[in-house]
């Protein structure tokens, strides 16, 4: 088992607590540390404090414009290297994904294997 320090951190931006919990359980099983940023929390602040290895972002959260936020994160030098995977119930988002320079896309409802695969691709757990 990897030690606490070497574990990679995944920031999950998701307002639906059950989905956030599901992602947390699955990714923790695969050796990731998971932080959840739900409704009302400041994503940018959390990115600054935790310096996550990867961000999973739901595009459709009340109060947070996922598209704008992704664009913002991708434009700042400190955060632009962090891979961002968009999660959405919309099936066809390739244009949006490209336009905001997101790294990947996971359509809802996703398979757990897909989730793990895509996270693994962008940061192999230590």
């Amino acid at each position, binding site marked *: 088992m990897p030690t606490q320090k070497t574990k990679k951190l995944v920031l999950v931006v998701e307002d639906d607590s059950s989905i956030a919990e599901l*992602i947390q359980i699955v990714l923790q099983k695969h050796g990731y540390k998971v932080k959840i940023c739900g409704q009302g929390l400041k994503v940018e602040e959390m990115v600054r404090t935790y310096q996550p290895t990867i961000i999973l972002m739901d595009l459709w959260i009340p109060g947070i414009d996922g598209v704008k936020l992704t664009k913002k994160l991708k434009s700042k030098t400190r955060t632009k290297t962090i891979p961002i995977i968009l999660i959405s*119930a919309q099936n066809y988002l*390739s244009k949006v994904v490209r336009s905001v320079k997101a790294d990947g896309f996971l359509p*809802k*409802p996703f*398979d757990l294997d897909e989730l793990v695969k895509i996270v693994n691709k962008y940061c192999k757990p230590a």
Partner: protein
Amino acid sequence: MIYSTSLQKKLALLNQVILDSVKFQSKKAIFSSFIKAGIKLLKADYGFIWFRTKKASAFTQLYKSSNTPYRPLPPRKKGFMEKVFQMRAVKFIGDSTKSKLIRDDAKKYMKSVAVIPIIYKRERYGNLVICFQRHRIFSAEDKILCAFIGNSASRSITIHNLYFRLKDFKDTLDKTLDSMFIFDPLTLKIEYANDGASDQLGLPREQLYRRTMVEIQESYKHEEFKALLAPLLMQEEKFLTAEGTIKNSRGRHIPIEMFLQYIRTPGRPGKILSIIQDITERKRVEQESQQLLKQKDEFLSIASHELKTPITTIKGFAQLLQANSSFSKNNVQKYFVEKINTQVGILTRLVNDLLDISRIETGKLKFRRRIFELSRLVESVTDNMQMNAAKHRIILKLKGQFWIFGDADRIGQVLINLIGNAIKYSPRARRVIVTLSQYERFAKVSVEDFGIGVDKKKQQKIFERFFQGKRDAETYPGLGLGLYISANIIKSHKGKIFCQSKKTKGTIFSFTVPYKRCRLKKRKN
């Protein structure tokens, strides 16, 4: 012919009578003016008129001078009056006492008489009778004058009839509620506008006549309006309709539809007839239904998004449970979790179908096209379907490889739909045959089942929206959207989808997609 000055004066007076008579409202007034003129010119005493049209068989007295001393009896059939009427020539009787043509009772009141047929070319309207109480000798000049009186009266009546026929026609047109315009195709100047037009624009007709079509509507400038008319003037189109807006005198903008027709009469400059209709109501209904459609799409989209979140959770936790239970020996638990998984799969598909429908309706169904190999896709879809099929064995017959440019996921979706249907509608059968073969320049995928079959009549309708097989006898779950979506997907891939079926024997659903002759270079790497 040279007329004497007195005759010329008389003819000039008659001309004035003709001109004046056009204004009269009734035939009687016209005739009376001619009788009066005749009496005056011939220095006669009184006169009356026997009116008769070509079709009528008897004469009627339309007018007599107020000083007529007796009551003239209606003319006899085939009598003197009739003869003059048929002969179409003026008849003078200088001395009535010696004449057999005049009835004895009348002889008392007239010594001489002139009977003038009212004729002009083919028009005949009866006879004018001008009477003298003393003997009169008729000169050649009198003959000319009388013939002229007859002609003139007939012409006046003809003009009068024509005038009223036109007036009736124009009055009807004037009072039509639709706005009508007649305008010149070159200058666009309005030459006629009816009351409907004047009402709609809130302008009196006299003012409309001073404007052009460009000034009464807001959508087309002069050159644009002419461009609009071009197909009519070139006779490429018989009529045109165009939409636009007009601004009425109260400043309100009214959406309108303009009907335009080019009307040509030989030897006359062509005109454009335009009928303008207020389409406010139609526009409102259109807008409303569009709004409703948009709301429906938004609702479908939101609803399916909202549904997807809980589905994701259920699916995920079921998967976790499945992973856990695969280590345990509790077979019942394993079975239950499997059930949950299959059903979540179905639920996901239904929600996706709903989303697809709203995309098809709004033309937003998108495809991620790339080159892929069809037999591999058919194989993997079949494998997946086999895993979920409890009873049926899916027999796969692959006859070749086909490189397709298209959306593999979407084509896979069609195949999943067809195989799913085959299983669903053949509950008592044990196999489904999936064949991939070549058909002309297309790759053809067929799915054959041995189930309930489809009615001949329904085979046409089966690709329509919300269609579902056999609602009455046995019910099968589903929204009836699958084939509609499939048909749309295949259509977008320039392919065809069709169904052959025999009732109770089974059904073959097939679709075709064009394939590429050779693999692209990119693939070799």
